[in-house]
């Protein structure tokens, strides 16, 4: 099982984001550095959900927004460690849509269930596998670091 370290500020931020966009899905990127068997995430970057046609159960981040997030991350000496989104009134578990639309092998996909507007469980799933053809989600252990909470 992989490990995803999140600062307390990042953990709180992604859950707050999910509450703010309820009943629609929120989404964003997680920035950090690779560690043995996981990621150390120090920042969450909010992104717009372009799926305005079905925002209550779908999300999509525009390519150009990703380019800019990636560019800013590189300037900070960070990389894209993964992404987060919310499941409004739905369990904090990946869906078949999540898997089929996931293409960042080795990255973590964090999902927060938001029940009636309140953030509930948050889980993380690593997109494992050697290629698009054998990709799968494996659950991460989320470790919340209480220090360094000034970054978000």
């Amino acid at each position, binding site marked *: 099982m992989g490990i995803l370290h999140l600062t307390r500020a990042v953990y709180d931020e992604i859950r707050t984001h999910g509450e703010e966009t309820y009943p629609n*899905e929120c*989404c964003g*990127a997680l920035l950090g550095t690779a560690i043995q068997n996981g990621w150390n995430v120090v920042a969450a970057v909010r992104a717009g959900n372009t*799926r305005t046609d*079905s925002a209550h*159960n*779908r*999300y*999509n*981040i525009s*390519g*150009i927004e*990703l*380019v800019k997030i*990636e*560019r800013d991350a*590189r300037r900070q000496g960070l*990389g*894209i*460690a993964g*992404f987060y*989104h919310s*499941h*409004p009134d*739905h*369990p904090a578990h*990946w*869906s078949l*849509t*999540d898997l089929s*639309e*996931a*293409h*960042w*092998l*080795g*990255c973590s*996909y964090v999902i927060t269930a938001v029940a009636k507007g309140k953030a509930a469980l948050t889980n993380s799933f690593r*997109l494992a596998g050697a*290629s*698009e053809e054998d990709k799968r989600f494996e659950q991460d252990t989320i470790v919340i670091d209480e220090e360094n909470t000034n970054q978000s």
Partner: protein
Amino acid sequence: MTIFIPTPLRPFAAGKDAIEVEAATIAAALDSLTQAHPDLRKHLFTGEGKLRAFVNLYLNDEDVRYLPAKEATAITAADTLSIIPSIAGGC
């Protein structure tokens, strides 16, 4: 030009986040990239040699799909090419 490699593809590009190539077009730049790092090819292209549908290419800030000449667009040494797999999903 400089090609920026996204996190999931860096293991197939000697761990690099950016690679310099000399080429006249975007297609030639990708060719040069995958010749230098052959393991990248299957992650970028289908077996038929077409760019995978979920792989987005941005020449500087422009989506290559919407450039008139697409991957045949001419490039200069100062240009950057970002390879960005798509990110989407939902419950």
